């Protein structure tokens, strides 16, 4: 046991704590509810939270850098509207549309990053107006929801890896996992990722250490913009439509997932792996509510809050205990 503790990196204790608690809660669900512990439910957990998770990966890097990106939800929705516009109104082929929307996401992110860096503006306000802008532009395209009928998107949405005869890992879950892996590699094995941690740790020092702080910051927001655009593509595959009002408040869920995953909002500390767990925990909490299925409407909200509280408290006690050991 002692040896095990020695080998564990102390910084990662909250991460392990998270993971263990996730498994515990999952087990709890399995005890309480029939069919909770099934492959299908697990695959659903990945699939249904994929777009949230993808934005959360971008958000993780932003928060590690000491910033915040409130535009992720709107950007995702704007992307769905763009795809709808390009595909259904302008009849462009997917091979043009998909790279185009990703590029727009990157540009949008860089624009915000640029404002934040060059004008030394608080990320909260810049990305909040980014949030208004992206939602607003979506409305300008159309107030109505637009079904996307192009065959490609339908076929893509049906694509997946057959796990068992009946259950398939859909493409969007695969994209989610891929983005998480990219996020992990980026944050841990590239200069860009490490510089992000440095900026979050102490931006002034990072400047004096000779890091290209401006460029990195812009890249961070560009990456987050790209993730949001990818999430938009995934959302299109999920619903085959574009809709300007979709998923109000995604940014908050995304921030919550990141922070629950152990990333500090003050910057400098965090893990993309943790965010994955954070996203799954949020999904799990909602699963509890649906499987319970008889909660009074308002009790559902209270129970979600209580579960969140319960989880956070577990996380705290667990990590302080382990750290003290």
């Amino acid at each position: 046991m002692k040896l095990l503790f020695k080998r564990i990196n102390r910084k990662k204790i909250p991460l392990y704590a998270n993971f263990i608690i996730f498994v515990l809660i999952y087990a709890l669900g399995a005890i309480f509810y029939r069919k909770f512990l099934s492959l299908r439910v697990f695959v659903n957990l990945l699939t249904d939270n994929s777009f949230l998770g993808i934005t959360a990966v971008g958000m993780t890097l932003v928060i590690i850098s000491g910033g915040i990106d409130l535009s992720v939800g709107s950007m995702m929705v704007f992307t769905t509207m763009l795809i709808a516009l390009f595909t259904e109104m302008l009849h462009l082929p997917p091979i043009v549309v998909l790279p185009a929307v990703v590029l727009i996401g990157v540009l949008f992110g860089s624009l915000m990053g640029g404002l934040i860096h060059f004008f030394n503006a608080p990320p909260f306000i810049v990305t909040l107006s980014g949030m208004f802008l992206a939602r607003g532009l979506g409305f300008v395209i159309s107030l109505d929801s637009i079904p996307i009928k192009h065959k490609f998107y339908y076929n893509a949405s049906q694509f997946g890896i057959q796990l068992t005869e009946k259950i398939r890992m859909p493409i969007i879950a695969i994209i989610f996992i891929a983005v998480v892996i990219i996020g992990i590699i980026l944050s841990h094995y590239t200069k860009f990722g490490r510089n992000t941690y440095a900026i979050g740790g102490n931006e002034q020092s990072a400047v004096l250490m000779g890091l290209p702080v401006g460029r990195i910051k812009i890249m961070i927001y560009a990456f987050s913009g790209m993730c949001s655009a990818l999430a938009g593509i995934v959302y299109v595959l999920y619903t085959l439509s574009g809709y300007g009002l979709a998923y109000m408040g995604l940014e908050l869920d995304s921030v919550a997932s990141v922070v629950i995953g152990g990333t500090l909002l003050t910057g400098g500390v965090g893990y993309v792996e943790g965010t994955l767990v954070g996203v799954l925990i949020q999904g799990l909490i909602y699963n509890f509510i649906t499987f319970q299925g008889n909660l009074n409407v308002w009790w559902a909200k209270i129970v979600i809050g209580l579960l969140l509280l319960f989880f956070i408290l577990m996380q705290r006690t667990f990590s302080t205990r382990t750290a003290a050991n």
Partner: protein
Amino acid sequence: MITANPILAINRLCKDFPGVKALDNVDFFLRKGEIHALMGENGAGKSVLVKVLTGVYKRDKGKIYFEGKPFYVHSPKEAQECGISTVYQEINLVPNLSVAENIYLNRQPQIRGFIDWKATNKKAEKVLERLDLKLDVKQPLGSFSIAIQQMVAIGRALDLDAKVLILDEPTSSLNVKEVQQLFTIMRKLKSLGHSIIFITHFIDQVYEISDRITVLRNGMLVGEFLTDSIDRVELIAKLMGKKLAEFSSEQAEIEQGDENKQGIPFLEVQGLGKKGLIEPFDLRMYKREVLGLAGLLGSGRTEIANLIFGIDRADKGQILLNGKSVNISNPHDSLKFGFGLCPEDRKSEGIIEDLSIRENIILSLQVKKGCFKYIKRKIQEKLVSKYIDMLKIKTPDMEQAIKNLSGGNQQKVIVARWLASNPGLLIMDEPTRGIDVGAKAEIQKLILELSQKGMAILFISSELEEVIRCSQKVVVVRDKAKIAELTGTQINEHTIMNKIAVV
């Protein structure tokens, strides 16, 4: 004065801040292969010169030539790329990343575009080995003492292998051994043709290592001197702006009587300790007494201070105040008992950057009084100007944000904060760090005066000389344990060194 081909030539450089002429037509020349000391009182403009040179601040006027060509950089990054590597005065590294990363940030060895962590850690260990430092480079930098952080910062700068190396007060938190280690490396670099700008307040070190000295005062150039051709008294006169005749040793030694040290001590520490932090120790302190703590870097002096002040909670032992056991579980408690602690790390434990000098100074006194008894503005101002005068804090006015002060002046503000709170017991952990010669003498004098007036002072300093001069009793600490207590004539460099060194 201008010799042929200086690698760096600064011509009539000016830099203004609101209310301050930080640099006023300063000339400076650095030759190839020399170690050039830059000296001046706190707030003379040394750090600003470095920062303008490396692109942190924009210059207002003046020309800089680097290797004969006009030199204009916008950021430390560009300066680095041009071959100027700098260790700034405050440690500017990131505490949340590991030591190895701090050394190799943005230059990590890579395999196929991805960071090679093994190589990074190995190389970092090598770099630190040059400085004779052995530590787990995978641990976050923030978990180490500032001395170690300072060494890491030096390590990073050295490894950049630049043509010009700038060291802004690198030795203020290092002990003798480490300073020697650093000097060895500096000499080696010099022999390889690198040029070094070295900023320090230690006169001895300047004479030991530098070839030439440039002195600044109030943002203006006083002059450039060959180290061999200027003697100490003259140098100090230049630094302080006094004519040679006016300058006399103000360091009147105060008699160290051993009287009235019987009876119930003011403060008695019995077996106080915390597992993994410091072994249980005893201490007795009387009023009117300065107790010095001596020991090497990392020996546990700061731990002793923190444990008494309640920053860390002891798991063993007790503290008696005037013979009565008191329960101290946080700094708030100790403040109420009339303790004060002037912390070691001024950047993270001392200053509150955005607050003004006035607010920084009155803070502890205010907390002690309770937050509803707001000290009247007039009284605040009187108090603050008293300390500004007393400690010669150099600032246009007391409403200046503390972050705009020079490093040494920030330190003075923190000292002033604790003096203002008028404690019964004052713990000073490296209070003279980064402070110029004149002010250092002032502070030492002040410590003695305060103790005469009845204050008990626990004095920690890495400068043994200073500990010896001020203390009536010296406790020697080694490897996180108290090993000896010396009094009277035992207090001399030789005995203390022996205690520290002999295993």
